C-alpha cells in the first residue's frame, strides 16, 4: 500500500518551491492524484512528502489580450464546463472529453497531465497545435517555455528540482481558426494508442495557413509533424492534400510496439487520423468564416 508520508500545504507558490527544493526527490506535488496515487499503489513510487497545491489559487481559466490562461491546478471537469474553452478553444474540449472518466476528470488537473508527461497525454497534442506556452515558477522567479520544449522523454519534463508548472498559456487565436483532436483508443477510459491534433486558418481564397499537426503516443514525447505542416502551408486545401499530409506525418513519428498496439498499426492510424483531423479542423475553420 502507500508508504508513510507527510503532507505539506504551502500557502503560496514561493513556499511550495522552497519545500520542493528542500526535499528534492522525496517530495512530489499532489494535484488530482489520479496519476500519482496509482504510481504509489502500483508502481512502487515511495515518497516522504506530498505537497499539495490547493491553496495556491492556480485554478483560474481566463481570457484576455494575452490569450487563454489556465492555472495548473484547474481540473479537467472545470475545463469541460468552461464556456470560454468550448467556444474559443474547442480542440481542448475534444481532448478532455476523451480522457479517463467523469470520476477521474473531477480530480485530475491539466498541470498534472502535462507534468506526468506520458507520451500519450491527451492534452499535449491540442496544446502543441495551439502554440501553447507554460509558465514555470521557482525560487529564482518565473520562466516561460514553449510546450514543445517542455517534454523531454517518457515521464520527463524540463522542470528541475524546486520548480513547478504554474500556468498554461495559449496565444489569442484569429476568430476563423479551426482545430480538432482525434484519439484512437481500445475502449472507454483507455489512454491513446494514437492522438492527433490538427489546426489551421483558411483564408478567403481557400489556402491554409498556420497549419499545425501534433501527434501523441507515437514517440517518446508528443511531437509536431513539421514536414506534414510545411507541405500544407499556404496550399489550397483539398482531400487529396490532407491524405498526402497524413502519409508524410506517418513517417514523422517513432512509435513502439506495446500492449495496446504495434508500431506498424500506430503509423497507419497516424496517417488516417491526421487526414481526418485536418478535415475536421478545416471544416471548423470554414464554418467560422461563413
Amino acid at each position: 500500500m502507500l508508504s508513510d508520508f507527510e503532507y505539506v500545504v504551502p500557502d503560496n507558490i514561493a513556499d511550495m518551491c522552497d519545500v520542493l527544493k528542500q526535499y528534492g526527490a522525496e517530495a512530489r506535488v499532489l494535484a488530482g492524484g489520479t496519476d500519482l496515487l496509482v504510481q504509489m499503489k502500483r508502481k512502487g513510487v515511495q515518497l516522504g512528502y506530498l505537497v499539495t497545491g490547493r491553496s495556491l489559487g492556480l485554478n483560474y481559466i481566463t481570457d484576455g489580450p494575452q490569450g487563454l490562461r489556465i492555472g495548473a491546478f484547474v481540473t479537467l471537469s472545470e475545463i469541460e464546463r468552461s464556456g470560454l474553452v468550448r467556444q474559443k478553444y474547442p480542440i481542448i474540449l475534444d481532448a478532455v472529453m476523451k480522457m479517463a472518466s467523469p470520476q477521474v476528470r473531477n480530480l485530475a488537473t491539466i498541470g498534472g497531465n502535462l507534468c506526468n508527461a506520458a507520451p500519450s497525454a491527451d492534452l499535449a497534442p491540442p496544446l502543441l497545435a495551439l502554440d501553447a506556452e507554460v509558465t514555470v515558477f521557482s525560487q529564482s522567479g518565473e520562466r516561460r517555455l514553449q510546450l514543445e520544449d517542455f517534454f523531454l522523454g517518457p515521464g520527463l519534463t524540463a522542470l528541475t528540482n524546486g520548480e513547478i508548472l504554474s500556468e498554461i498559456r495559449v496565444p489569442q487565436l484569429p476568430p476563423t481558426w479551426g482545430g480538432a483532436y482525434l484519439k484512437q483508443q481500445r475502449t472507454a477510459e483507455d489512454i491513446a494508442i494514437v492522438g492527433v491534433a490538427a489546426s489551421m486558418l483558411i483564408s478567403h481564397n481557400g489556402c491554409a495557413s498556420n497549419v499545425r499537426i501534433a501527434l501523441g503516443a507515437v514517440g517518446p514525447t508528443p511531437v509536431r509533424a513539421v514536414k506534414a505542416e510545411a507541405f500544407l502551408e499556404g496550399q489550397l486545401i483539398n482531400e487529396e492534400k490532407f491524405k498526402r499530409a497524413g502519409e508524410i506525418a506517418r513517417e514523422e513519428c517513432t512509435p513502439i510496439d506495446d500492449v495496446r498496439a504495434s508500431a506498424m498499426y500506430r503509423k497507419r492510424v497516424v496517417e488516417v487520423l491526421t487526414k481526418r483531423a485536418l478535415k475536421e479542423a478545416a471544416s471548423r475553420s470554414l464554418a467560422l468564416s461563413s
Partner: protein
Amino acid sequence: MRIKIALKVNGQQKSLEVDADRTLLEVLREDFRYHGAREACGAGVCGACTVLLNGKPVSSCLLLAWMADGAEIETIEGLAQGEKLHPIQQAFVEEGAFQCGFCTPGMILAAKSLLDQNPEATEEQIKDYMEGNLCRCGSYPKVIKAVKSVQAKMGGGQGAK
C-alpha cells in the same frame, strides 16, 4: 502523520483524525462502516469506489482522506430516506439493473449525479457519463433502461425504451 479533518457524510457532520496515507474510500468503509463503495481496481478505472464529492462523482480510492477536508460526501447509504428508496434505486430494482450488485452503488451515484446536472441526458450522454462504471455481470442495458425510466417519471428524458 495524522491530520484532523472535518467533512459532511450523508448530511452528517463528521470530525476525525486520519493518517495522511489513508484514502477516502478506506475512511468511509473502515471508520464510518459505509461498505457500499468498494475497492476493486484501486486505480480509478472501475468506478466501484465512486462516491459523490460536492455532488460530483469521484474515485475515492485515489482521493486521500485529508484532501476531502471540508467536502460534502454522499454515499449510497445516504440515498434512501428510511425505508423509502430514492427514485433511482427504485428504478434499478424495478428494471433488474444489477446481478451481483457489486458495481451498483457506483452506478446509482453516477446516475444520480448525471440526472442532477442534466435531467434531459440522451442515451449517448448517459453512456458517456457512466463510462467510468464497469460491470462484470453485464447489467449495462438494464442500467440505461433504469436511468431512462427515472427520466420518464420525472417528466424529462428522451423517451423510455
